[in-house]
C-alpha cells in the first residue's frame, strides 16, 4: 500500500478558552486517491478535523493540541499554513463567506497568486480549475451575480487551482436545491475519478452519495466511531447510526436494514435506489405486496381556506419580477410544502402573505385579513413566520424574554404570558437554558427557540423557512413532532424547504414554484406521478419513490407509489 497522504495520531484539540475538547484521540490514515464520506451530527468535530488537516488548527486558531497530524510526512505543527494550503484545500459550507473577490477569474487565481506563481501559470490554473468544475464561461463574471450553485462551483475551482493533494468539502450542498445538490455530487465524483485528488466529503445529505464513496467515516462527540467501507458498515451498524447517533442514512440502506430485519437476507446490501431495486428484485419470489400496495392517502375533504390569494404579482424596486400571477389556496389544518429551486419566488410569496411586502397587483385574504390593506402587525398576530436563520429574529437578552416578547407586544395579561412561556419552554425542551442569552445557544436550541417565539403566539398559520438548515435528523424529528402537535390543534403549517424526505413524511399538500409562478398545487402523492413537475421545480424525489418505480418496471412486482420508507416497508410481506 502507498504511504498515507494524511496521518493523524492521537489528536485531541481544545478551542481557545474551551474546557471540552472538540476532538478526542482521533486516529486516521488517508491514502492518495481515496474518496471518503465523513458524517456526524452538527458539532461533532467534523469541521474541526478538516481545519486541523490544513494547519489552520493550531497555526491560526491557536488552542491546545495533543497528538500529531502529518501531511505527506510533514508535521503540521512545524509547518506553515501557506506550505500546507497547497496540499490540503478546504471548500467551506457557505460560499458567500469564502469568496473574497469581485470577479470569478480573480477568485480562482487568488490562491496561486498568493503563492507567487508566474502569471502564465496562474492563468493556466484558472482555466483548468474552471474547466474542472464545468464553468469555463464564468471567467469574467461578477461573483455576486452568480447563482448559489455557480458560487459553490467557483469556490471549488478556487481550491482546485491550488492543485491540492487532498480536497475537503464541508457540506457543499447545504445551500443548494435538490437538483443542484445532485449535480454537485456528480461533479465531486468526477473530480475524484478524473483528477485523482483525494476527496473528503462532509455531508448530512447522504442519499445520493453513499454508493459513490470508497470509505465512510462516522464521528460522534469528537471521536471517530466508525471507519469502513460503507456497504459493510451500513449493514452491520446502520441501525446504530440511525437510532443512536440520530443521523440520516440513505433510504436504500434503511429499506435494506428493515427488509433484513423482516427476515429477507439480501445478497448485496444496497447503498442506493438502483442497488436496492436489484437486491429486492432478485428475491422477488419471497416478497408479497400487501393489499393494493400503495400507502397513498385519500385527499381529505376540502375545509375552509385560511389562505386564499389570487393573481399575486410582485416586482422588486430594482425591477426583478419575483412573482407572476400567483393564485394559491391553503386550507385550515393543512401541512403544506412550498417547493422550487432557489430564486423561484418561495420566500417572496411568503413575505407577501405576512405583509412584509405589498403585492404589485392581485390580492386576497389571509386568516380573514385582506393582505393588501393589512399591516405587518395585524397579519403577524394571525400568521407566524420562522426565518431560515434563527439569529436573525432574536431581539431579547434571555430565552424566557425572547419567548415572552411577542405576547408582551400584544399586551396580554402577565399571568397568561407566564403560563404560555412556561409551557413553550417545556414543549421545546428549553427549560434548562431559559436564563441564557439566545445567541449563546447551540444551533439546535436556537432553531427550537425561534419556533417557540412563534408557536407561543398561537397563530392560525405558521410558516417555516428552510427548517432543516443545520439540523440533524433527530432534532428535525423533534421539531416536526411539536409542529404536528400544533397542527392537530388546528394550526396550518407551511414549510418552505428543499428536503423532500421531510415533505414526504409530514406534508399533505405541495406547491411547486418555478420562475415566480406556481406550476403545481396538489396532494403530495401526485408528485410521484408528475415527472414534469419534478423537473420544473428542480426537485429530486425521495429514493424510495424511485425504488418502487424500478421494482414495478424491472422486477414486475405489482407495487404502487411510495414516498416514505415506513410505508414502503410496511407494505412488504416476506414469506
Amino acid at each position: 500500500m502507498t504511504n498515507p497522504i494524511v496521518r493523524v495520531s492521537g489528536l485531541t484539540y481544545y478551542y481557545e478558552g474551551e474546557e471540552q475538547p472538540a476532538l478526542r484521540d482521533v486516529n486516521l490514515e488517508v491514502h492518495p486517491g481515496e474518496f471518503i464520506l465523513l458524517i456526524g451530527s452538527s458539532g461533532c468535530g467534523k469541521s474541526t478535523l478538516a481545519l486541523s488537516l490544513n494547519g489552520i488548527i493550531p497555526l491560526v486558531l491557536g488552542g491546545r493540541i495533543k497528538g500529531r497530524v502529518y501531511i505527506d510526512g510533514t508535521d503540521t505543527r512545524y509547518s506553515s499554513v501557506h506550505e500546507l494550503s497547497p496540499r490540503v484545500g478546504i471548500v467551506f459550507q457557505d460560499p458567500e463567506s469564502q469568496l473574497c473577490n469581485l470577479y470569478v477569474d480573480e477568485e480562482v487565481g487568488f490562491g496561486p497568486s498568493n503563492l507567487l506563481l508566474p502569471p502564465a501559470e496562474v492563468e493556466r490554473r484558472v482555466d483548468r480549475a474552471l474547466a474542472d468544475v464545468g464553468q469555463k464561461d464564468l471567467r469574467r463574471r461578477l461573483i455576486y451575480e452568480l447563482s448559489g450553485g455557480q458560487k459553490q462551483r467557483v469556490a471549488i475551482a478556487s481550491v482546485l487551482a491550488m492543485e491540492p493533494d487532498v480536497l475537503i468539502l464541508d457540506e457543499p450542498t447545504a445551500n443548494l436545491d435538490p437538483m443542484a445538490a445532485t449535480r454537485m455530487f456528480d461533479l465531486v465524483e468526477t473530480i475524484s475519478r478524473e483528477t485523482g485528488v483525494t476527496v473528503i466529503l462532509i455531508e448530512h445529505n447522504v442519499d445520493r452519495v453513499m454508493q459513490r464513496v470508497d470509505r465512510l467515516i462516522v464521528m460522534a462527540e469528537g471521536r471517530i466511531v466508525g471507519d469502513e467501507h460503507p456497504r459493510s458498515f451500513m449493514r452491520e451498524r446502520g441501525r446504530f447510526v440511525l437510532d443512536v447517533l440520530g443521523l440520516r442514512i440513505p433510504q436504500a440502506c434503511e429499506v435494506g436494514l428493515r427488509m433484513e430485519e423482516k427476515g429477507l437476507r439480501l445478497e448485496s446490501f444496497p447503498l442506493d435506489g438502483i442497488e436496492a431495486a436489484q437486491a429486492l428484485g432478485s428475491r422477488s419470489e419471497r416478497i408479497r405486496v400487501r393489499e393494493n400496495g400503495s400507502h397513498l392517502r385519500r385527499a381529505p375533504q376540502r375545509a375552509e381556506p385560511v389562505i386564499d390569494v389570487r393573481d399575486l404579482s410582485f416586482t422588486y424596486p430594482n425591477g426583478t419580477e419575483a412573482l407572476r400571477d400567483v393564485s394559491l389556496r391553503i386550507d385550515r389544518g393543512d401541512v403544506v410544502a412550498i417547493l422550487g429551486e432557489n430564486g423561484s419566488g418561495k420566500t417572496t410569496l411568503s413575505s407577501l402573505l405576512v405583509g412584509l411586502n405589498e403585492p404589485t397587483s392581485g390580492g386576497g385574504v389571509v386568516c380573514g385579513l385582506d393582505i393588501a390593506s393589512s399591516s405587518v402587525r395585524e397579519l403577524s398576530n394571525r400568521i407566524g413566520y420562522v426565518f431560515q436563520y434563527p439569529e436573525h429574529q432574536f431581539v431579547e437578552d434571555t430565552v424566557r424574554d425572547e419567548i415572552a416578547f411577542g405576547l408582551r407586544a400584544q399586551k396580554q395579561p402577565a399571568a397568561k404570558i407566564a403560563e404560555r412561556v412556561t409551557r413553550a419552554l417545556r414543549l421545546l425542551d428549553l427549560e434548562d437554558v431559559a436564563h441564557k442569552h439566545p445567541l449563546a445557544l447551540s444551533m439546535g436550541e436556537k432553531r427550537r427557540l425561534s419556533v417557540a417565539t412563534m408557536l407561543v403566539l398561537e397563530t392560525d398559520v405558521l410558516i417555516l423557512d428552510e427548517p432543516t438548515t443545520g439540523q440533524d435528523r433527530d432534532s428535525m424529528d423533534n421539531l416536526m413532532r411539536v409542529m404536528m402537535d400544533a397542527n392537530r390543534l388546528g394550526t396550518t403549517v407551511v414549510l418552505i424547504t428543499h428536503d423532500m424526505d421531510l415533505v414526504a413524511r409530514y406534508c399533505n399538500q405541495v406547491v411547486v414554484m418555478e420562475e415566480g409562478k406556481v406550476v403545481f398545487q396538489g396532494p403530495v402523492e401526485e408528485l410521484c406521478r408528475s415527472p414534469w413537475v419534478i423537473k420544473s421545480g428542480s426537485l429530486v424525489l425521495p429514493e424510495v419513490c424511485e425504488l418502487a418505480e424500478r421494482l414495478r418496471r424491472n422486477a414486475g412486482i405489482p407495487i404502487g407509489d411510495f414516498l416514505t420508507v415506513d410505508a414502503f416497508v410496511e407494505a412488504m410481506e416476506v414469506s
Partner: protein
Amino acid sequence: MARFGYVEGTSFFHRMDPTWKLLWNLVIVGMVILSFDLLYALACFLYVFTLTMVVARIPLRRYARSITVFLGMGLFIALWKSLYSAWAGYEAVHVWYAWGPINVTREGVYDGAATMARVLAIASVSLLFTLTTDPARLVDSLIQVAGLPHRIGYTAYAALRFIPLYESEARTIKQAHQIRGVGENGKGVLPKLRLYRSMLVPLLVSGIRRAQATSIAMDSRAFGAYDRRTVVQKAEVSPDTKAFVLAHVPAAAAAFYYFVMLGHGVQIVR
C-alpha cells in the same frame, strides 16, 4: 451600493489609471475648496459634469440617481444658511426678512447657494471617479502604482465585496424583526429607531462570524504567504493619463495664486 457603483465603459476615464485618476480628483477638489465664490464653484461643477457626460458617457438617468443624494444634502445646507444667516449682526448686511431666530439676508442666501455649488462640484468629481472605476482595477493600481501594502489593499477589497451581502442581510433581519413586532411598520422616527437598535446585535454577530469565516478561507488559500502576490493584471499608466492630470496642475496653481495669494477667495461679503 449600486447607486454609486461602477458603470462599465471604455472611455478615456474608464481606461485611466485609478491612482492617477485619484490624483486628478484631489487637484480638482483642491481647486474647489480655495474659493467661496458661487460662479467659480458652479463653473467647476459644470466642467466636471460636461466631462462626465461627453467624455465618460455616463447615462444621464444613471447619473441623476447618484447626484440627487448630494443635491438634497446641498439644498438642505443652502436652506439652513439662508434661514439662519450668520451675518445677522454684521454691518452692511442686506436683511430681506427677519422673524425671531430666522434671519434671511442677501449674503446668507448667496453663501448658501455657493456652499451648495461647492458640494455639487466636489460630489461630481468623486462620482466621476466611482462611476468609471472598476474596484478590482483600483486595488490593483493602489498596490502596484501607489505602493500600498497588498494585505491592506486586499482586505479593503474583500470588505467591498461584502457590502451587497450585508445590505441584503440587513434587509432580512429588518423583516425578521418586523414580524416579531419590533418597530411596527418601520414608519415614524421612534419605531424606526427601535428597529435599528434591535437589528444592531444580530447584524454585528453575523458580521463578525462572516469575517471570521472569510479570514479562515483566505488563510486557507495562502493569503499573506509572501510580501508580494503575483501580478496578473498589470496596472499601466498611459502617457495621455499623465498628460491629462498634469495639465490640470497649472490651473490649480493659478486658482491658488488668484484666490489665496491675491486674496480674492476670502471676500465673501460684497
